């Protein structure tokens, strides 16, 4: 499903984001990506849908190349990959429904999407998805009138109407309080179980990772330092992932 080989990212400032990461994720997995801040979790997720271009290494998602892809090729990969952001990244002034419809842009003819004339089936899919994430009756409200937890659900609905093969979530709950965090994680787990959607979520809280992830990948200073089932993560191994390293401190 996802194949990463020798992935490195060095930012123009000289900061090392990733340092030789190789990773395979099979269809239907729920991977929790853990590590302290600056360990490379965001960089890895952003490389997977081409928001960040790596300095070295190759990525393919669903047998399509991400690295070295043409702009059209990259768009077709992105259309298959839902991305949920830490800050939700909604268009605050647009209605909840319009925000969700943004997820169907890759499917709609350009002129229709420019005029905002989405097909009835896309609108129906958006409404259905909003019901599924537990948001009913707020379709026509402005996105910024919702609470943080509701906004993150809108963002998840936007990713789901893409009908993606993979869902990437970059610290999806770190702007939310603990109760909301759990409900968002439960939603991601349900999506993974019911739709068989591959989910990779970066988390900085260990207990959420072990509760919801089936597999845990630990990053430290841009390298994979742990990869195994969630059940088998020993406290010592967890400590090693989060242990601060001098290079990490400088970032």
């Amino acid at each position, binding site marked *: 499903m996802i194949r990463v080989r020798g992935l490195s990212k060095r930012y123009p400032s000289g900061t090392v984001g990733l340092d030789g990461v190789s990773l395979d994720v099979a269809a239907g997995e729920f991977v929790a990506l853990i590590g302290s801040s600056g360990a490379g979790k965001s960089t890895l997720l952003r490389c997977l849908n081409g928001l960040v271009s790596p300095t070295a290494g190759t990525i393919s998602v669903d047998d399509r190349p991400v690295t070295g892809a043409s702009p059209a090729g990259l768009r077709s990969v992105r259309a298959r990959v839902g991305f949920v952001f830490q800050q939700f990244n909604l268009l605050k002034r647009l209605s909840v429904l319009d925000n969700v419809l943004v997820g169907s842009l890759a499917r709609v003819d350009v002129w229709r*999407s420019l005029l905002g004339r989405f097909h009835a089936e896309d609108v129906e899919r958006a409404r259905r998805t909003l019901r599924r994430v537990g948001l009913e009756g707020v379709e026509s409200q402005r996105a910024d009138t919702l609470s943080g937890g509701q906004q993150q659900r809108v963002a998840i609905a936007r990713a789901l109407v893409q009908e993606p093969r993979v869902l990437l979530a970059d610290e999806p709950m770190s702007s939310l309080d603990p109760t909301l965090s759990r409900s968002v994680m439960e939603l991601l787990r349900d999506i993974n179980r019911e739709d068989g959607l591959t989910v990779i979520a970066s988390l900085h809280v260990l207990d959420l990772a072990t509760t919801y992830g089936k597999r845990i990948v630990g990053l430290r200073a841009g390298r994979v330092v742990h990869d195994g089932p969630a059940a088998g993560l020993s406290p010592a191994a967890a400590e090693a992932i989060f242990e601060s390293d001098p290079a990490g401190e400088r970032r």
Partner: protein
Amino acid sequence: MRPPVIPVVQWSGWLAIAAAIIWSAWSTEVSPGRLIEGFPFMLDFLRRMLPPDPSVLGQALRGALQTLQIAVVGTAVGAVLALPVAFAAARNTAPAWAFYWTRSALNVFRAMDTLVYALFFVAAVGLGPFPGVLAVVVYTATVLAKLYSEAIEAMDPLPVEAVEAVGATRLQVLRWGVVPQLVPHFLSFTLYRFETNIRAAAVLGFVGAGGIGFYIQTYLRLLNYPAASTVLLVLVVMVMVVDFASSRLRARLV
């Protein structure tokens, strides 16, 4: 943290400001005595303006309409010209050299007000409302380009990235990530500029560039105060109506 201001520096600053005000007042012959002596003449002036002469109402309304039309065309064309310039004058959408040159050029053009441009365009294309329109266009374009570019710089990049991440094309990213963030601000700035342009266009007639200003100036020169007061009343009512409607609209936008 702001560094603490040394009291001596603070006091000398206030002293310098006070000195500048006193010096300017002295140079401009400010004299409360002369103002008080002038009061009877002002009252006499007001008395002679009343009652307004209704026979020039038609003329005044035609002049007001032309002022409104100058402001409408001038604002619309100015706003359209300002759009591309604004993207060249925003730090986040233009290369550094383009940003620098566009901002500098805008500052130069903005140094002159609409009336100064009107003098220039009357000399270039002759008397009438057309040089007035040109003057409003130029000044509006430079002011709106600056305001638009500030809105572009204040845009949130995160939703734009989210639209890119769903596999949208560049045009779609513009339509769904950028436009929804900018349009309310652009419309609000344009309406605000329209309100100011009505006032600016009202005095264009003083230099022969069309509109209601021509009648104000003519009747004051002819010492026909009742006629002048009719024209002024029409102007005041028009400005108030436009301001009210426009600010109601703006309140709904942002």
